[in-house]
């Protein structure tokens, strides 16, 4: 049986674990550990392996939700994680020093996966820092040759995460109906 999965990625503290928690039907399996490196400045605990959640569909199918570890030293895991993936959700923390640099880094790192599937971008922490704006992200993306959905997202809010995943699915196929 095929393993269907949606990948959540982004820098440390962008809300990947929380986003998975928002739409998972099971309490997500977290692999957080006390941060001891530079990450410590941003959050006390960080994901060192991956997060995992499940969406149960009618008929018994399961969609696996994987969150990549945010730290770059774990990037060797990213290629393995994406095998069989439906698409990519990239979460960016608007409160970080250079969110555009983060965006570029992750889009490049997952470029092959994105080319084969699609990506939707959620910008978190916009209530704390409203600059750059969503329009600024679109301007940057235009220069990079991407035209994905970019939404302001509160990872704790199920509806926000749900809309982001819906945009990813429609990007894959605008003809989708939700009752098939």
């Amino acid at each position, binding site marked *: 049986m095929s393993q269907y999965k949606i990948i959540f990625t982004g820098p440390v503290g962008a809300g990947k674990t929380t986003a998975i928690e928002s739409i998972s039907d099971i309490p997500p399996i977290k692999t957080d550990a006390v941060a001891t490196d530079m990450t410590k400045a941003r959050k006390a605990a960080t994901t060192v392996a991956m997060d995992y959640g499940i*969406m149960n569909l*009618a008929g018994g199918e399961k969609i696996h939700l994987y969150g990549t570890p945010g730290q770059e030293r774990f990037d060797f895991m990213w290629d393995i994680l994406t095998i069989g993936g439906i698409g990519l959700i990239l979460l960016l923390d608007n409160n970080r020093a250079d969110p555009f640099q983060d965006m570029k880094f992750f889009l490049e790192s997952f470029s092959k996966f994105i080319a084969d*599937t699609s990506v939707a971008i959620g910008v978190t922490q916009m*209530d704390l820092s*409203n600059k750059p704006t969503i329009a600024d992200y679109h301007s940057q993306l235009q220069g990079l040759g991407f035209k994905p959905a970019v939404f*302001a997202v509160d990872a704790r809010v199920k509806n926000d995460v749900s809309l982001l995943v819906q945009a990813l*699915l429609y990007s894959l196929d*605008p003809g*989708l109906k939700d*009752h098939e």
Partner: protein
Amino acid sequence: MKDKQTKPLQAVLHGMDGRTYKTMVMYFQGPCKGEAVVVEEVDGEVDIVDLDFPSGKSALDKIRSQKMRRPVIVLSREEVSFKDVLYVEKPIHLATILSVLAQARTLIQQQGWSKSFDILPVKTTENPVSVAEKKALGDGVEIKKTAKHKTAMQMDEGSFSAFIGMITEIDFNDKDQLDKAFYSPKNYFQGYVTAAVKVSKEKNRMLQLNSNWKPLLIFPHSHEVWLDADDKQLRAFASLEMNKATGAKLTITAIDPATSAVREKMDKFYDIDAFVWKLAIWTSKGRYPQALDIHRPVFIKHWPNFTRSLITPHALQITALLMRGPRSMLNIVETLNIKPQYVFVFISAAYALGLVGQAERKSDELFEPPPIKTIAKKESKGLLSRILGKLRSSK
């Protein structure tokens, strides 16, 4: 306490980001009791520079290089050594800033704008802005704007008509009537709002749109509007056609801080785009903007920020389709097999934000748009639909 006869000091802010700018506006209105008011460059009596922002230093250098200039107040965590500015140490204490504003006022009255004057340190701990107050006025301001940060409402076909209210004069099932299912935004409140927002952005000035209804305040720096009305009231006003007599009563003026109730009603702030989007939906009621031809292709620049917008039925689907390339509105109706009013209302909202336009390239009209090509693997198409169904059903 400000003397009621005294006009607020007209302050111009420099070097600050949007949030700090907004906080200062609130701070002058609130704790400072209108002692100063933030105005545009041309109207200013005093310049206030925050040196702790990267652009603060260059702003100060520019001001200091001018021959004729206004009094300058510098805000910084670190003491400044310039002799020709008034210095306020951060975090700002209420008594300190009030005292410095009074000194600036005195300098203006003495017509000492271009004179150098010694630094006038004002050290007092009286009435300090407490940490809690600072949070409420500073870091917390953005979060308090509950209307602005509310997540989107995603409507299905069933709830849409009841929520929006459709135009009953048009039979959308009659293809011949679709050509006439347009409206002109400029004949409604929507048109006046978009025009006022445009002026506010171009002039980079806070403006107030006055009508025979409630004033709409526009804040271009933070990309927000403020309106003391609920959705029901706005929806009703949006649908009223402005005849010439009503239109003449609509004016654009500077914001009057004395009459503004902004600081008491933080839940009335809206992101400009989300507000205009919603207004266009309630004005359109299923019609399309007159400036667009339903038979010719339209393009979309990028995805709207759907998580902070009112989502009309099939809006994500229409966007995803248009992101693949321009199509006419009628082609979208046919391709997605959805009702025309859902396409028209979405196009109206996106057009109001400048996201949608008529494709001008002749090549876009040369060929029929291709059928939808899925990126997803064949066997997973049904699966994607089931994921979608799951997400839509478990809001």
